[in-house]
């Protein structure tokens, strides 16, 4: 899933226009709800926090909060179309995809981001998320015992660990596991070490951001127009 982290309250306050009369905070009910930073619960608590702030500062701002299943899909946005159009400013707690999808749907409306989209990750423990994928567009997990060197090595090294790997930790930070040690351990267990000895040429990054802005079409819907 896409993991996000709510922006600092001060940053949110600074971003909101001074002369606004009303604000709608929109949570997103899928990924960022799971990472406990952008769902309905967080939208409502942010509403309460901002309401208190504006009241204490003597300004009248009508703040509302709502949430939909997914902000990246028109189907769900229809539910709150009227609400969005009635408010001066919309603060989206979705990932960057959701924020931009709202902006495309409501070209006349100011849509602001309340969340920093951090990474594609998994829930590694209660209240903890870990990066797993960079969305490089050409999955290599079959060749690395199911541990991604692109996302889980801080240097995205394809041919083995760097000299900075120590005691299973990355040279960047002791809190980061060395991705290559994870690859090595799992490959040992799966008896796949020979595969790791094969030379990996520089990766073709055209499927990543390096190939330009990406989009794709499902051939089922586009006939010969797809791949």
């Amino acid at each position, binding site marked *: 899933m896409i993991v996000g982290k709510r922006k600092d309250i001060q940053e949110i306050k600074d971003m909101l226009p001074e002369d606004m009369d009303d604000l709608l905070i929109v949570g997103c009910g899928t990924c960022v709800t799971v990472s406990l930073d952008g769902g309905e619960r967080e939208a409502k608590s942010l509403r309460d926090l901002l309401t208190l702030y504006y009241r204490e500062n003597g300004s009248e701002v009508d703040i509302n909060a709502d949430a939909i299943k997914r902000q990246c899909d028109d189907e769900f946005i229809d539910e709150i179309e009227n609400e969005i159009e009635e408010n001066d400013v919309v603060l989206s707690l979705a990932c960057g995809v959701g924020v931009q999808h709202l902006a495309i749907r409501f070209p006349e409306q100011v849509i602001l981001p309340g969340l920093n989209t951090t990474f594609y990750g998994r829930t590694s423990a209660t209240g903890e998320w870990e990066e797993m994928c960079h969305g490089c567009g050409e999955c290599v997990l079959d060749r690395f015992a199911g541990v991604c060197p692109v996302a889980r090595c801080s*240097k995205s090294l394809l041919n*083995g660990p760097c000299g900075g790997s120590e005691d299973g930790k990355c*040279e960047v930070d002791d809190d980061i596991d060395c991705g290559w040690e994870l690859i090595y351990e799992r490959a040992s267990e799966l008896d796949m070490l020979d595969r790791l000895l094969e*030379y990996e*040429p*520089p990766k073709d990054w055209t499927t990543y951001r390096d190939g330009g802005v990406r989009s794709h079409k499902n051939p089922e819907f586009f006939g010969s127009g797809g791949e």
Partner: protein
Amino acid sequence: MAEYISKLHKLLEEDHFVVCSEMGPPIGADPEFIRDKCEDLKGYVDAVNVTDNQTAIVRMSSISASKIAMEEGLEMIIQATGRDRNRIGIQSDLLGASALGLRNVLCLTGDHQSFGKDEGSKNVFDMDSVSIISAAHDMVHEGELVSGDELRTPPKLYLGGAHNPFAEPFEMHMLKLRKKIKSGMQFIQTQAIYNLEKFDMWMEEMRSQGLHEETHIIAGILPTKSEFALKYMKNDVPGMDVPDELIDRVANADDKEQEGVDITVEIIEHVKQHEGVKGIHLMPVGWEEITPVVVEEADLYPRPEVEVDNE
């Protein structure tokens, strides 16, 4: 072998015990800084590495500094890391280095930018040390670029890499070393050696696999007179292995400089005995002026004189 790419290549192939050293280029554009450093080294070392923005701190480029030092009469080893340049930049720089007459390159992954002052910069790592070696090998020996395009005039470069014999898990790091050798690494400079027992184990492993015959091993030596530096390396530099006895020796010495030299010479004499160790690489960080002293005390002076056709 009929043709040698560089003096270093010739010395190693002709079985001289080589002495390399290292130079950190200035954080500035002063060529005199390089020329001054050359004075201390001339006649005492066979080749000098120039680091490529080591610890991710902006410095004069390795190729430019190497060219200045080469004009002073030194044999140079440029360093090329994958942190700051993609395959286009690296290959372009290798062509340029060769055109300037630089003949040796040490191919490295590069320290992460979080070590330096520009933590907020983007890194590249389009290529790692293995793929840089492989690409350089193909350029030099096949006349071919990564793209498959052919080079009308291939570069002339003698290819090196690095290895840390002390990094754990041992076998995982050996795996990468084997890939480097297979990709065309002709010489290898090791991480600084303090733990002789572990170094012996590594050499044993290299010999048992015959790897000491597939690449020339140059042992990394870091002369220091500072207890603080040793402790720092032990605790804060990833992959460094410094035994406590050594730290105590420097700490308790009356003449720390002499103790530093003595320890260095002892390590040199130890590694020199190994079958397969073809030279040393001195990295006296912040104590460059000690290089001639160490070379003389280790009985490695004068250096052999060789010539190669550098057209």
